[in-house]
């Protein structure tokens, strides 16, 4: 749905392209399309109306700067106004601090708590976690299991009933640590007892940061809830979770507008590593279907520490099994291919599902299979005939079918990247041809 919207947005922009002066009708159409796109992304209705008004007035009133065409002029205004919506990115400082997590039921506070713990741990801080959710059964088990995986101490008691008491004890127990994250019970603004509880927890912990966790799918309700939380404890950062679904996170923008704070992190995935720093420009680009280069760069950089992945070569289409091996190695750090593809500036290009349909267990198998190939085979997969296949399979303790499947996957990746190459250089990229090739594959 979002894709048709962003393409109609692009069509509307195209109409502005050839114009010498800003055309009122074309601007109106653009604004209307923009409104629909933003409303479908759950951005608050009032925000959308304010925004479209500003864009319309500015587009029509502001003088066209020299050396820019109408399309660029309007697009720049749209972009600036959108960026204004997300305010500044909230700062994450690497210093001793107490962080209080707040949010609605089921927004993903506990998972995010563990992810943030991991984030600070990776940056070399001493981290501890306190479980102040004394209501939901299994909450302590969940948090302590997640923390055990990353060796972060988790303070809590599954039998405790008083969150205030457990937090006091927790603070005493974790006083030697640098970053202390307090996970709390889910609550919503219409539960006065629970709101009072979080006000008390804020006082007890003297929290340096109070972060509100917002589900990417949260709709118009985001604004009201964020307002109440802000009134209670003064939210100074927003975290968007579940960005790996199809939701666009527009509700979080409402939260940002209400709390006058910034978005700190974005959670996109169920494993503990799936947490990104928020980048306003990138988020907006993605909202508009224009790709998010910056976040990709950040990820690629981080991944290079392990796998040395040559994005450059990949984009040029020199893609051998060796590159794929590196990609699989880096996968843990880069996140799944789909996430990476979403961040590339290829707009609303839809890749066939088959490309992504490779589970992590299969990835591990593929790596083992590649380990039993010769360097020549890795550089030139064309060499692999059925007798080589037999040998590789035997070496890896697998079957020739598995090798064939691996080669099939490699070919699919190869063609995908070849397609991207044409796109990157602005050449004659033929989408239909690419799709055709893929449908032949499956």
């Amino acid at each position: 749905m979002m894709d048709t919207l962003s393409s109609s947005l692009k069509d509307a922009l195209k109409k502005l392209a050839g114009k010498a002066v800003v055309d009122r009708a074309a601007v109106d159409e653009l604004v209307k399309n923009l409104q629909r796109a933003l409303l479908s992304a759950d951005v608050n209705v009032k925000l959308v109306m304010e925004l479209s008004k500003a864009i319309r007035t500015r587009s029509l009133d502001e003088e066209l700067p020299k050396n820019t065409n109408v399309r660029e002029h309007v697009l720049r205004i749209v972009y600036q106004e959108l960026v204004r919506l997300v305010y500044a990115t909230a700062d994450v400082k690497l210093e001793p601090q107490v962080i209080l997590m707040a949010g609605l039921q089921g927004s993903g506070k506990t998972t995010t708590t563990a992810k943030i713990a991991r984030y600070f741990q990776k940056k070399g801080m001493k981290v501890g976690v306190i479980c102040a959710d004394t209501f939901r059964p299994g909450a302590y088990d969940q948090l302590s299991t997640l923390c055990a995986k990353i060796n972060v101490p988790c303070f809590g008691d599954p039998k405790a009933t008083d969150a205030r008491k457990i937090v006091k004890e927790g603070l005493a127990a974790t006083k030697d640590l640098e970053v202390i994250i307090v996970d709390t019970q889910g609550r919503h603004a219409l539960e006065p007892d629970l709101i009072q509880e979080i006000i008390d927890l804020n006082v007890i912990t003297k929290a340096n940061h109070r972060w509100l966790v917002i589900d990417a799918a949260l709709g118009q309700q985001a604004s009201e809830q964020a307002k109440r939380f802000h009134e209670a404890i003064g939210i100074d950062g927003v975290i968007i979770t579940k960005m790996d679904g199809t939701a666009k996170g527009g509700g979080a923008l409402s939260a940002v507008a209400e709390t006058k704070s910034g978005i700190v992190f974005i959670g996109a995935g169920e494993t503990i590593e799936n947490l990104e720093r928020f980048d306003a420009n990138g988020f907006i680009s993605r909202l508009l279907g224009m790709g998010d280069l910056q976040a990709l760069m950040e990820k690629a950089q981080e991944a290079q520490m392990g796998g040395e992945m040559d994005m450059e070569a990949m984009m040029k289409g020199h893609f051998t099994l060796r590159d794929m091996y590196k990609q699989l190695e880096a996968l843990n750090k880069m996140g799944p291919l789909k996430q990476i593809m979403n961040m590339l500036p290829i707009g609303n290009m839809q890749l066939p599902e088959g490309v992504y349909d490779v589970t992590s267990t299969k990835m591990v198998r593929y790596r083992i299979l590649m380990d039993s190939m010769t360097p020549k085979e890795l550089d030139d997969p064309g060499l692999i005939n059925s007798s080589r296949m037999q040998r590789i399979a035997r070496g890896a303790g697998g079957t020739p079918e598995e090798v064939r499947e691996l080669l099939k996957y490699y070919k699919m990746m190869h063609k995908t990247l070849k397609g991207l190459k044409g796109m990157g250089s602005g050449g004659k990229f033929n989408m239909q041809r690419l799709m055709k090739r893929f449908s032949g594959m499956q």
Partner: protein
Amino acid sequence: MFSGLKERLQAVRNRLGGSIGAVAEAAPPAPAEQAAPSTPATPQKSPTLADKVKILIIDRELVVSAKDIAEALDELEMTLLESDVALPVTDAIIANVRTSLVGKHRKIGESVDALVVGALKSALLNVLGKGFDLPAYIRAHERPVKILFTGVNGTGKTTTVAKIGAYLKKQGFSVVIGAGDTFRAGAIEQIGVHAERLGIKIIEHQTGADPSAVLFDTVQYAVSHKTDVVLADTAGRFHTKANLMSQLDKIRRVMKPDLIVYVDEAVAGNDAVVRAAEFDRTVGADAIVLTKVDMDSRGGAAISIAHTIGKPLLFLGTGQEYEDIIPFDPDAVVEELLGCGA
């Protein structure tokens, strides 16, 4: 419940009524003008014409045109959007109201209000469909009735399973719960505590076990113990994860549920439509439970999801206690939204 949407719908209703009412007041001069040029043309029949005009003014039926209600419909559109009704669904409802109002003949004496409310009501009822009487379904069905709960992460599946367990137990059915969320840390402990508190039998394996196996065992238990209902909890999963969706499909093949209940939250925005459609397409859905209705929800998600997959709503979850669950009654909801006496 749904108070936000209710207030706003009433405002729109007045507005729609107002603009049609305005048409009614503005209308009488029009036939008079029409009458004027025709008078000289047929002077000999002037008394009859005067009568005709009189009849025209008093008994004339008004025809509502698209232009008359355009502004009010725009407002209705905004209202629905602000209430989290997803964009495509909003479009559908507006179209529905428009077609049922435009071209409608209305006598001057007839109440404008009734006309508008009627149109809105039928549009909403159309979308919400019929409710679903679970106890009646279970009574009419061969035991055990196997119910599988699905949905994305964090919508409240586990809590809903516990609540429905408590509800059915109160209705006199015997219940067994299958702890099919073997993925999320703490999930088995969570459902285990609920089951213990409610005195409901639970079948569980270890974390990381195959959920199909757990739920198969649960069904086996129910068969051999002549239990009435199997409630199968599952891990939350996103519709974009192909492997997790095929795992759900496997669960479905293995335990052969009688009902697949899709659980989503009332506060979800436009994405509710996308994911409901995807779940319905891949593993199917027979009924919907909407949770977190107590979060001052505007009720839009109910309308969105029901419209998208055309399946009945089973329950609304309205709080954190076991009894905070109410069977869904579309008539009652629409009555409440539009105010009684419609």
